[in-house]
């Protein structure tokens, strides 16, 4: 180490998070393949992680700065780097010890542009890791989600029910049709193969299955099952336990946006901001977004 008159440059980001498991849950929900290359984008607002299946499916995880107990951002612009998602999540997992608080510090970049992680809550031991990053070689495609029309076409459904429905739709197979109907207000998922399956969600005000529903014209689009499946296959169990809802929106051209909320707060340890076990500060939530492109043979209005 040479002492230098010039102050060493501060890293772009140093942040500390006190619930590693929450971050692991949030990032795991966008895993659908063994090997996925993610692009991480840092800004003064937080961290965004993007994964993609080229031009078919894209997922984003928003970890806003309020999730962190410390967030020091000193970069110019928005640094972007590539990292292996599986590696990152598995690495984070090693810091997560059940039953006790796990506070880690994330720093970027390291001396060789690595992502640095270290545990900061233990006095007698330290876990330290470096993850190689790379220059992202693909421009993550901006899916350019636009509303379908003047009124949005969207519905909010209980996440557990959505996952159950998509799991059931594995039986018929390859292509799933989603139909939104204004009268009677309902959402239908339909799959046809060696057998047919149709799952209907009726919008009644008194059940909490369909929490919200906006649709003024009937629309129907088809999506490949495996991409639809990717949007729910790794929903963390905390989402089910917290009884959260997922919002699905159909945009122009049939682009489907699926949004989940994943809690990053520690449920069992008392937190100064948490009054009761169920209440959490709104900012302790990570936002997950999936964009699914529809299949080619699409009709915007289906009069079936």
């Amino acid at each position, binding site marked *: 180490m040479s002492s230098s008159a010039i102050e060493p440059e501060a890293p772009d980001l140093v942040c500390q998070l006190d619930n590693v498991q929450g971050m692991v849950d949030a990032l795991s929900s966008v895993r659908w393949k063994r090997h996925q290359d993610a692009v991480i984008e840092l800004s003064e607002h937080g961290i965004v992680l993007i994964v993609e299946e080229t031009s078919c499916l894209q997922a984003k995880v928003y970890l806003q700065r309020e999730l962190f107990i410390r967030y020091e951002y000193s970069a110019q612009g928005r640094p972007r780097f590539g990292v292996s998602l599986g590696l990152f999540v598995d690495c984070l997992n090693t810091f997560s010890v059940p039953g006790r608080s796990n506070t880690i510090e994330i720093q970027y970049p390291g001396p060789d542009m690595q992502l640095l992680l270290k545990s900061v809550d233990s006095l007698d031991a330290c876990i330290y890791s470096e993850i190689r990053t790379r220059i992202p070689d693909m421009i993550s495609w901006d899916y350019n989600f636009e509303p379908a029309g003047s009124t949005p076409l969207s519905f909010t459904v209980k996440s557990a029910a959505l996952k159950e429905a998509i799991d059931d739709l594995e039986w018929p197979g390859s292509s799933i049709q989603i139909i939104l109907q204004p009268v009677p207000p309902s959402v239908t998922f339909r799959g046809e193969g060696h*057998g047919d399956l149709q799952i209907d969600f009726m919008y009644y005000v008194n059940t909490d299955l369909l929490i919200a529903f906006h649709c003024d014209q009937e629309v129907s689009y088809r999506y490949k099952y495996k991409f639809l499946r990717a949007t729910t296959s790794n929903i963390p169990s905390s989402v089910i336990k917290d009884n959260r809802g997922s919002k699905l929106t159909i945009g122009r051209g049939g682009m489907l946006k699926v949004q989940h909320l994943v809690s990053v707060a520690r449920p069992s340890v008392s937190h100064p901001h948490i009054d009761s076990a169920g209440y959490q500060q709104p900012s302790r939530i990570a936002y997950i977004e999936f964009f699914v492109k529809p299949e080619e043979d699409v009709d915007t209005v289906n009069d079936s």
Partner: protein
Amino acid sequence: MEFSLSGNALKTFARSITCLARIGNELALQASPSQLAFHSLNSSRSAYQSITFKPDFFDVYTVSGTQVQCSVLLKAICSVLRTPITSIDHLSVLLPNHDASKVQWTLDCYNGMKKAYWITCNVEPDIQHLSLDRRRFPSSFVVRPRDLNRLLSNFQSTLQEITVIATEPTSLPSDAASEIGGKAVELRSYIDPTKDNDSSLHTQLWIDPTEEFVQYTHAGDPVDVTFGVKELKAFLSFCEGCEVDIHFYFEKAGEPILMAPQFGLDDGSTSNFDATLVLATMLVSQIQEGNPSEPPPVAATIHGQANHGTGSQAQERTRGNVSEHPSDHTRIWSELSGSAAKNGSGAEERQVQGERNENDNEQREIQRISTMHISKTRSVGENVLGDPNSCHPMESNCAEDPRGGAEINGHGFSQRHPSNWVDADEDDDEGDETELCVQSTPPYHEE
């Protein structure tokens, strides 16, 4: 045809499907105004399950015409019932007309989801129907599922076939000092003797039917039946879930064994559903007996062709261990057969090694073994085997290869040391090669 059900009936229905799915692949559905019947037959045609429901089992039941039938894959129905039963409000099944190509199964869930499945009917259904009159079986017993589970837990969980040996229950009370207790029934593991690598657990279990069974009926000579364990366990789970006892009906080796739920007598009226499982049994008896020469009833004991390797039903092997020497206590003899390094006392081994040819001389050899054993044997309370030819009528090489087999020194037929087996003819040497054996405790008295 249309029917709809919910609540406990739905639970029983789901259990029925699970049981049928463990028997066969296809579900044959026959609906008439008086009942709905589900049948399944396994691919080797050795197990047939039938479950019938009366109309009052259902919330809604309508059948147009005299009979409607179709056939669907059980796997598809199992996919329908993947949804947890507790979250289903009701299930409806609809076959719109006689020649409809799909059956519609609709689940209305408590959470508001409605799931409608259209399952394709099999184009050429193979709908078999088998009905056996339970009264034709002379022997029977009734057992509680949890008791049978407990008895079966003594056997290796991967056991494929089991033998039940039934003897006439003695009228003497079970007396600790007496040698002949009331252990009139034996359960014995059946292991395919031609399997090369026999490292499985062999188990013999003698039980007192008055202790273990709710009811037991058998008169006359001992009989044994050997049948598949997988199907037995499937039916056992079914009856356990329905909280009914299992009634077994049987006659002898080769004749089918029939199982049915025994609804409690205090239920008064009969239940609104019924089930029957018919299993084919091995043609060859595991105990010495008269020649099972009658051809089996075609429908029930449709064994694979004799020389198939599939299933051990075609194998012929008489162990000659007459094990109805009941012991004072329920005693379990278990032996782990050693691996290759056996001591050479097993004469069969010598024979096997000496004369084994690759192909169907194997049959011949087994033939030889059983023949010879028969000739030397005598047993207590058994018919003396007059017929040296104990072969299965289907065995073609049987007749041409009778070996008087004099050169065998006794118990060579078994790879396991015979002194382990409670054997009627204990003129064999005992206790010499005991490294692999479990010695009997208390000492066993020969007659």
